[in-house]
């Protein structure tokens, strides 16, 4: 059974069709990767799924419910969370606080209790902190817990975003280039982490440039080029697809 299904999503900016009629599905515990050259429309696709952009056409179905263009905070309540290619951390908050922020829905209570510093409010905050510390350990950032997030390296911030997203205990997780800016060791760690999250039953949608990583951990790969889905299938099928090879070689030459 499909948890997240994308049905004919499309959007245009000015005359440019950034994404055109893309469909696929993700099941619980499955890792589906979206690959394609720079500017192919991968991030734009994520932005539509996660409610940041309103799709021009098509639907997003989450667990049987039409959630197209739903506000991100409502998607979060339904179990969808994401990370960002161009980092979106809370710069002036500590690493720990950034992670605790992911517990917002679980720790949320009345403002009145918060202003009066009632025991209920403190208890919620404590529970969230304990959870956040465990998550930071899981992504290897426990020693940076008290540091201001803005002072971390790019690769560490990527992991911080994953920890924050995990705090929501999502059923669907969208990761936009989680290994960008990470060295080989860190990439492998993230690789393991993603596999582990999927193994716990989370449906994962992944954008990643590191092809080795993509081929290793994906159950299914969707290839975008110029906003169109040009191929999909398991890693072996996709890597042998001539259109895919052409799209990649084409841009590499153009960029090179």
């Amino acid at each position, binding site marked *: 059974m499909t948890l997240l299904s994308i049905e004919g999503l499309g959007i245009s900016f000015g005359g440019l069709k950034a994404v055109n009629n893309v469909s696929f599905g993700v099941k619980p515990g499955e890792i589906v990767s979206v690959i394609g050259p720079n500017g192919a429309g991968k991030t734009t696709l994520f932005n539509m799924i996660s409610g940041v952009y309103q799709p021009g056409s098509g639907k997003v179905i989450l667990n049987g419910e039409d959630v197209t263009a739903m506000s991100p905070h409502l998607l*979060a309540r339904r179990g969808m969370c994401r990370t960002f290619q161009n980092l*979106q951390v809370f710069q002036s908050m500590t690493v720990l606080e950034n992670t605790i922020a992911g517990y917002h829905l679980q720790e949320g209570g009345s403002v009145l209790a*918060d202003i009066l510093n009632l025991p209920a409010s403190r208890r919620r905050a404590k529970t969230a902190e304990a959870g956040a510390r465990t998550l930071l350990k899981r992504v290897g950032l426990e020693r940076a817990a008290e540091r201001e997030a803005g002072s971390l390296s790019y690769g560490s911030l990527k992991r911080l975003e994953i920890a924050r997203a995990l705090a929501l205990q999502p059923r669907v997780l969208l990761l936009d280039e989680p290994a960008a800016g990470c060295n080989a060791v860190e990439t492998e760690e993230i690789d393991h982490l993603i596999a582990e999250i999927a193994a716990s039953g989370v449906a994962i949608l992944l954008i990643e440039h590191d092809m080795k990583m993509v081929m290793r951990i994906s159950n299914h790969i969707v290839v975008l080029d110029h906003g169109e889905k040009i191929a999909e299938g398991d890693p072996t099928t996709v890597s042998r697809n001539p259109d895919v090879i052409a799209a990649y070689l084409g841009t590499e030459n153009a960029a090179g």
Partner: protein
Amino acid sequence: MRLTAKSATLLGLVVLIALAPLFFPSGFYYRVGALIFVNALAVTGIVILTGWAGQISLGHAGFAGIGAYACALAPVHWGIHPALAVLLGAAVSAILAWLVGRPILRLKGYYLAVASLGMGILISMVLNNERELTRGPDGIDVPDLGMRALLKAAGLDLSNGEFWYFFCGIALVIGAWLALNLHDSPTGRALRALHGSEIAARTVGIDVAKLKLQAFVISAIYASVSGSLLALQNKFITPDVAGFMHSVEMVTMAVLGGVGSVAGAIFGAAVLTLLPQVLTVFAEYEQLVLGLVMVLVMIFLREGVVPSILRKIRGRGE
């Protein structure tokens, strides 16, 4: 660590309020102190709204006007005790803030600045023009709170200046305590998160519009209580309390001290309340000085005076 920052601010404030009178050259300074506390209370609300929720209000004096005139009118017209009139004013301010903020804060951008500016002007116009009720620009008497008499009966005989100094001082300590509670709470963290990255805040489930609205309502209550206390201690109030210049004054005080910091709010309020008392020229050129302070702080101390100093001290400590 957070807890100590909070207790340090509160402890510092209590000690300052308690000890400052030892250095007062004359009884007049009790009145100046009380004015500082009243202003600092309103500015604490601005810190919550602007420093934490990232929204700008140019009409907060309107809420101070509501709080002030609630104390002037409700006891006379409806026989409500002045102390309850403070609560009535706060409730009216909160409801008005909710009504104005709800549609506006769903939009992205700084529309609240424009909407609140309009709201402030409207309130000011009503206070000036509804002469039958408010007596217009000449101002109106405000009934006595009656608390000083109660204290006297209980054996504590304070002068008028002393009473309002300590009464407003206690109000400020409570206001600062509540604000600092909020800062460290889940709601406060969510506020700071949305200030850091609105899009990320939304993806972790924060209802950004609702949170901004809560901050606006809370800050309106602060301004309203501040206006009430001003009216009650002066026993007289004019529509100037709701004027645009008063709104600008609040924002400038917050910016000077450091718009994200409660201690900064109190510092900013203290400096800009003291200045006109010490330098009489200031009163004449108030608008000029406020503008200059804004520009200089923005150029040299982006975070405001208090956070900049704290950063220096911490930087040296490491």
